């Protein structure tokens, strides 16, 4: 049975990288005595997959992973059991069942966007509007083999100022992926500001395309695709 877990990564836990976080959860589920499903073979591993890795240095209120368990339990109980085993800075926010157990429903394959807050300083304000009003926002994107110039503007769903933060909603996932760090790099380039301003970036949530054509929004939070276990 498939369960989607939403969790927060806060404070100093931002220095723990993605692969270490995977190992951390494997051990945490064992401590919490969650009846996980395992793969076969000589070195069986727990069946779990993460929506989209978060870079080192970023915090988040909307991280997701899907796990397979042998037995369901009420969401509340499961949440408490796992939270009991968490290090300070990681908190489970919800556990919900995903009825569709095929790959097509995996958080990893359906995630299409994520939104972020970037802490913001006054000097950035000056050229913000000019920056987002550009016809094209060109950045150098490095791949393993080459560097190429890419227009990232179509990958930005939304970007605006909110009080003391920049809000941005960006393409995320295997089809098209844009990191908030890259947007900020382009911004600093454009404004010709020093690049080494330490950035406080917080991921807020991750989304899939909403298949419900009646809905107002094109996007739906990954959390809303699961159902509460009672």
């Amino acid at each position: 049975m498939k369960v989607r877990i939403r969790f927060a990564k806060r404070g100093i836990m931002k220095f723990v990288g993605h692969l270490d976080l995977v190992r951390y959860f494997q051990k945490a589920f064992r401590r919490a005595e969650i009846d996980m499903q395992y793969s076969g073979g000589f070195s069986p591993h727990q069946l779990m997959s993460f929506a989209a890795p978060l870079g080192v240095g970023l915090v988040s209120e909307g991280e997701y992973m899907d796990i397979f368990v042998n037995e369901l339990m009420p969401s509340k109980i499961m949440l408490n059991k796992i939270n009991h085993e968490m290090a300070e800075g990681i908190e489970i926010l919800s556990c919900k069942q995903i009825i569709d157990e095929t790959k097509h429903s995996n958080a990893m394959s359906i995630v299409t966007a994520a939104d972020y807050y970037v802490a913001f300083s006054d000097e950035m304000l000056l050229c913000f509007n000019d920056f987002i009003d550009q016809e094209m926002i060109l950045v150098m994107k490095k791949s393993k083999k080459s560097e190429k110039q890419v227009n990232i503007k179509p990958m930005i769903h939304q970007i605006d100022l909110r009080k003391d933060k920049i809000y941005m909603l960006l393409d995320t996932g295997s089809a098209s992926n844009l990191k908030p760090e890259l947007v900020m790099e382009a911004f600093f380039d454009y404004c010709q500001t020093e690049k080494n301003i330490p950035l406080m970036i917080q991921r807020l949530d991750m989304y899939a395309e909403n298949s419900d054509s009646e809905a107002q929004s094109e996007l739906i939070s990954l959390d809303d695709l699961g159902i509460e276990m009672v």
Partner: protein
Amino acid sequence: MNKLALSNDILLNIDKPARYIGNEVNVAKKDPKKVDIRFALCFPDVYEIGMSYLGIQILYDMFNRRDDVFCERVYSPWIDLDAILREKHIPLFALESQDPIKEFDFLGITIQYEMCYTNILQILDLSQIPLLTADRSENDPIVIGGGPCVYNPEPLADFFDIFYIGEGETVYNQLLDAYKEHKHKGKDRQSFLEEAASIPGLYVPRFYEVAYNDDGTLKAFTKTNKFAEDKIKRQVVEDLNQVTYPERPLVPFIKVTQDRVVLEIQRGCIRGCRFCQAGMVYRPNRERDIEYLKEYAIKMLTATGHEEISLSSLSSSDYSELETLTNFLLDEAKSKHVNISLPSLRIDSFSLAVMSKVQDIRKSSLTFAPEAGSQRLRNVINKGLTQEDILGGVEQAFNGGWNRVKLYFMLGLPGESEADIEEIAGLSNEIAALYYTIPKENRPGSGRAEIITSTSFFVPKPFTPFQWVRQNRNEEFLDKQRFLNQKIKAQLNRKSIKYNWHDAWLTGLEGVMARGDRRIGKVILDAYKSGCIYDSWTEHFKYDLWLAAFEKNEINPLFYTDRERSLEELLPWDFIDAGVTKEFLIDELKKSKEALTTPNCRLKCSDCGCISYQGGVCYES
């Protein structure tokens, strides 16, 4: 949320920042203001290595069980952070509270290998604690050293306030109680060190002075303070079932070398291999009760969530209830998806059966440590492993599905001849040949035997029967290595044998540290000041700087290695009573010269002296 000693900016610009943030699962959390004693435990190497060491986990747990102590950890900052701390004058900090080490009451450093000595100075330096015990004042932490290297602490005598000689579970509580009383009464450092010196097993180097003969050998070792003892007796736990063991070990975020539950099944070894310091200084062999081990295995797996449990001891096969324990763990493993790792096992039908259950035969290899190529030389070192044992074990292994065998040998053992070295090649060849006697269609693996032969260089260690012998010069080691390589290349089955060899330059230095005296302290200090740290990491080892440090202090390193000592010579570590008597060591040395073996402790007591400890194998029957 915890504060951090390092800024965001620094942490995001160094490798593996999670090394420095603490906050691991099962970490100790206390209010530093509400304790009497703050203790920083240090393993002077990078986090991944230090976190893998059982001894710190034991002491960390033991200290933190006391309400009046907050014990924290510190490891060597990696090269990248080292540079930043120096540049920005940020004092080195403990992981839990992130407070500077210099504000602590104690800095306890475990000294596991000789090549970490410059890292000890790095820790002191970055902590902004004076490097020399003589320069420390009332506000500096008490710097205390323990671990296997303190069986000759003399090269480090200038840098430590106290050395703790023996097992941590024995007199630490006494020391901490004494410290607490001193602190409350407002007494000074000197009087505390005097009290420490009167606790059994504790050595305060500043209370002794050393004189030398014209030929450079030790003339006298004299105490200069009335509270100091003439002899320091190694402290030993009589009954390992009566001491604490961590129920909730720390679980690191980053992958460390030992990413598993470690269950220490026994301490000490009955075998008495003559080259092995651990086999001598951890005597007598003491087993933990099987019920104790079962209970802790379950508790630790539950509290950590680790996927693997490893049995730790010098020779697991000698644990008397190994079969019961292994079967218990195998049952647990099935239901909980736990792997079992069984290092230092004798290869026989039992261990092969166990191993085929716990590992993928196709991917794993079997390890033998004959240490010497010929039976004669194995008798010299009292390695009770015969040609028949090895070949018999290998044959069973090949029939059981393995095709990869690892063999470990030492070069430079006392009394070694070219013929002995050549036999390493011969034995490797014979093992490979055994594989090809199996009919083609039944051969396991790829159809080819994979024999991996590795050699290391022998370094004589204090409190072994070989503490007097000459160590080979680096050039001799390299010549022997080349010679062996040629011989392996000349074997019929050479294509099935892979020979692993390595650099000898570290070995010479290790030998100096192992049997050096107090004069070596200046060399270590100069080497450190000229830029040596992480010497055990080949890519950071700077041999030239070490040579320059020896030259500057007019010390010839060969005096400590390339010289046979007379049995009458006063040795720098003679003030330690390690349990094994000098008479026993001399007796063993003589027997080794005649290639005579000594039976293991369970077969017959050889009167080594450790019966004085009132426990373990000496009292079994």
